[in-house]
């Protein structure tokens, strides 16, 4: 048993801390004040590209041997994510790059698709985004119920439907759209399609107004007889075509749960530091009820962190972590919410004024119990394993 952090990961955490303080926190506060995501041409994004962010992990079709892919542990990534979320969780999602669909393209895309869709992210000339579109107004947690459909049209497909809450959708070069080709087959009947910006029939983009996490766009849009070629189907013609269905979606979700938990931990840790700071400034540290609340927050943060790290460590060992990942996600989101709520009680009416960062965190953090599978979905997954809860 050994819970210390590797020197290399420690260094990355320190870089994240610097970046977070200098870039993430001010950008997040700006977007929250403006109640809108930073515009595409905001200098923040230019600086992201200058720092080398927003690139694909893909090495190109003929990767130069001098550029081996760095092997990074899930634990390392998770701890860096905790640190970044400490400074601003929303901005993490706003960073340019191939984002959520990248892993699906890497594991299931054809070489042509990788070249075409990830190629521009090798050395991006400007901030570029891509997005993965699954959620629909009528299908959130129950993703198998989505109704956006793809119908054969000669050699290609015609897509119809509506998507919502899709991150960065209106600014994406392309959207990987999950659609059903055979609703009778449920998840098995789903496929993913690349839809490029500007394709006829793709439109109705509406950036939603949100309670929190305002620094990235959550966007709804419609697909109205959108015609794409056979080559736009993820994995089309390749050996992965068959498995590139619903699994695409679930795979994108799989590694993510402990990381979302860690981000919730980072936010709760931010709450903790701000609460301590507030208590000191207002000379409250001698009050039992104040110390007790702070102790409660710290204890919750600590346990949620350990749960997220364990789930990530299991993933690094390539061991099954379904229960642990779900437990960490359910717990992390819940404790972060409770922590923010406790901390607002310390602030009293100063919290009610709506201009303290704990108040922002309280609004931001609620989303953590909703994204990547709600707390209830996680508990269903856990209960399936523990007591055989039927589907």
């Amino acid at each position, binding site marked *: 048993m050994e819970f210390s952090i590797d020197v290399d990961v420690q260094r990355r955490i320190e870089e994240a801390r610097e970046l977070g303080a200098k870039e993430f926190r001010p950008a997040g506060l700006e977007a929250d004040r403006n109640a809108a995501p930073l515009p595409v041409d905001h200098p923040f994004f230019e600086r992201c590209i200058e720092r080398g962010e927003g690139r694909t992990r893909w090495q190109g079709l003929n990767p130069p041997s001098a550029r081996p892919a760095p092997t990074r542990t899930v634990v390392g990534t998770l701890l860096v994510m905790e640190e970044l979320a400490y400074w601003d969780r929303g901005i993490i999602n706003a960073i340019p790059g191939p984002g959520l669909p990248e892993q699906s393209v890497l594991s299931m895309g054809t070489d042509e698709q990788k070249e075409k869709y990830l190629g521009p992210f090798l050395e991006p000339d400007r901030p570029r985004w891509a997005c993965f579109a699954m959620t629909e107004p009528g299908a959130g947690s129950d993703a198998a119920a989505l109704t956006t459909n793809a119908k054969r049209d000669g050699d290609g497909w015609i897509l119809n439907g509506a998507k919502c809450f899709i991150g960065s959708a209106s600014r994406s070069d392309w959207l990987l759209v999950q659609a059903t080709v055979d609703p009778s087959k449920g998840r098995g009947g789903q496929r993913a399609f690349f839809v490029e910006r500007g394709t006829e029939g793709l439109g109705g983009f509406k950036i939603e107004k949100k309670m929190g996490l305002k620094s990235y766009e959550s966007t709804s849009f419609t697909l109205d007889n959108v015609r794409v070629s056979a080559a736009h189907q993820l994995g089309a013609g390749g050996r992965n075509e068959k498995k590139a269905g619903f699994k695409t979606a679930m795979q994108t979700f799989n590694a993510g749960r402990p990381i979302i938990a860690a981000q919730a931990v980072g936010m709760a840790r931010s709450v903790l530091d701000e609460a301590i700071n507030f208590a000191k400034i207002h000379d409250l540290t001698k009050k039992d009820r104040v110390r007790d609340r702070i102790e409660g927050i710290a204890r919750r943060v600590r346990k949620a962190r350990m749960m997220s790290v364990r789930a990530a460590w299991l993933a690094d060992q390539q061991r099954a972590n379904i229960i642990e990942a779900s437990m960490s996600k359910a717990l992390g989101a819940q404790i972060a919410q409770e922590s923010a709520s406790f901390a607002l009680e310390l602030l009293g009416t100063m919290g009610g004024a709506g201009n303290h960062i704990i108040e922002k965190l309280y609004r931001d953090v609620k989303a953590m119990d909703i994204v990547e599978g709600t707390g209830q979905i996680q508990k269903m997954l*856990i209960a399936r394993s*523990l007591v055989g809860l039927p589907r």
Partner: protein
Amino acid sequence: MNFELGDDLELVVETARKLAESELTPRLRESEASRAVSEDLLGSWEEIGLAGLEVPEAAGGAGLGAVARVLVNEELAAGDAGAALALDPYGPAFTAILEVAGEDAASEFVASLSRRTARALLIMGEDARVDLVSDQISIDAPWVAADRADVIVVLNGDEAILLREGFTLERVRGAGLRAAGASHLRASSAPIAARWSNSEGAARARSRARLYYASLLIGVMRAACEFSAAYSQEREAFGKPIGHHQALAFLIAEMRIAVDAARLLVHEAAWRVDAGLPSAVEASSAWAECIDVSRTVGPDAVQILGGHGFMADYPVEKFMREARALGLLCGGFDAAIEEAGRELVNSTHPLSLTTHGAN
């Protein structure tokens, strides 16, 4: 970062688990009624070599640390927490001497006691009325989990105080842990056999004592969770196993999450003790967390069994009582959060990812 126990600890855990399954669980009501574990069991525990778990190898012990202790305690307590106490001749009294007085004094301490039958008790200043007048001590502890004691160690502030005589144990009914006994401990101007002062050592001794009981609590809660989850798959109501009704399925998931998270805090704090890192806040937090979740996990396990849970035919009522009783020891919840809270409000970024691992 490594959550693996390693081969040596795996073996120790496995040994404790097997003993708990074969000897403790089947006799839990018997041990409770007789307020003791059998002589045979004490003998085999000593023969395996786990009776002197933390005793240095030079003094004939296993020379293991806080991590080994919390792992073994969980396994034993998953069988019977009272029996776990009865099986340990020295208890956290030993680690208090080890941390405050040092290895030589600790070796002397164990040499004066029988590894098979000794009972050494640790009294925390918070758990009793303790009065010190020059070289004499008076103690009034309404409940200790023992029917007899060879020595008493009082951990009071920065001091560890050893008593070999001048105290009495008067039997009380006990709210739980009866397999270890239950008494009212009194000492009136008893002679102090030895005393040591060491503030860092005393802090570590407190951490180890808290982790000792925290890990017993984890074991009890694990047993409560496992028993009630298994029951929920057998018992049917409204046409299906009760565990397949979402209200109970979620409750069972929540119980498991609570216990897993508390366990990780215990492990992390124990690792810090063994690594020589500051551990006071971590151990206090782990202990507080175990108590916090035991407030619901114990009663929830009974709730899952309904009326049957209330009856002594099933062990869950015992788990509920004993989880609650354990949480009253070692200063309980309030002393733990007080200690952690005081330190936290004096720090600026208490959980930042910079020093000493993930905390």
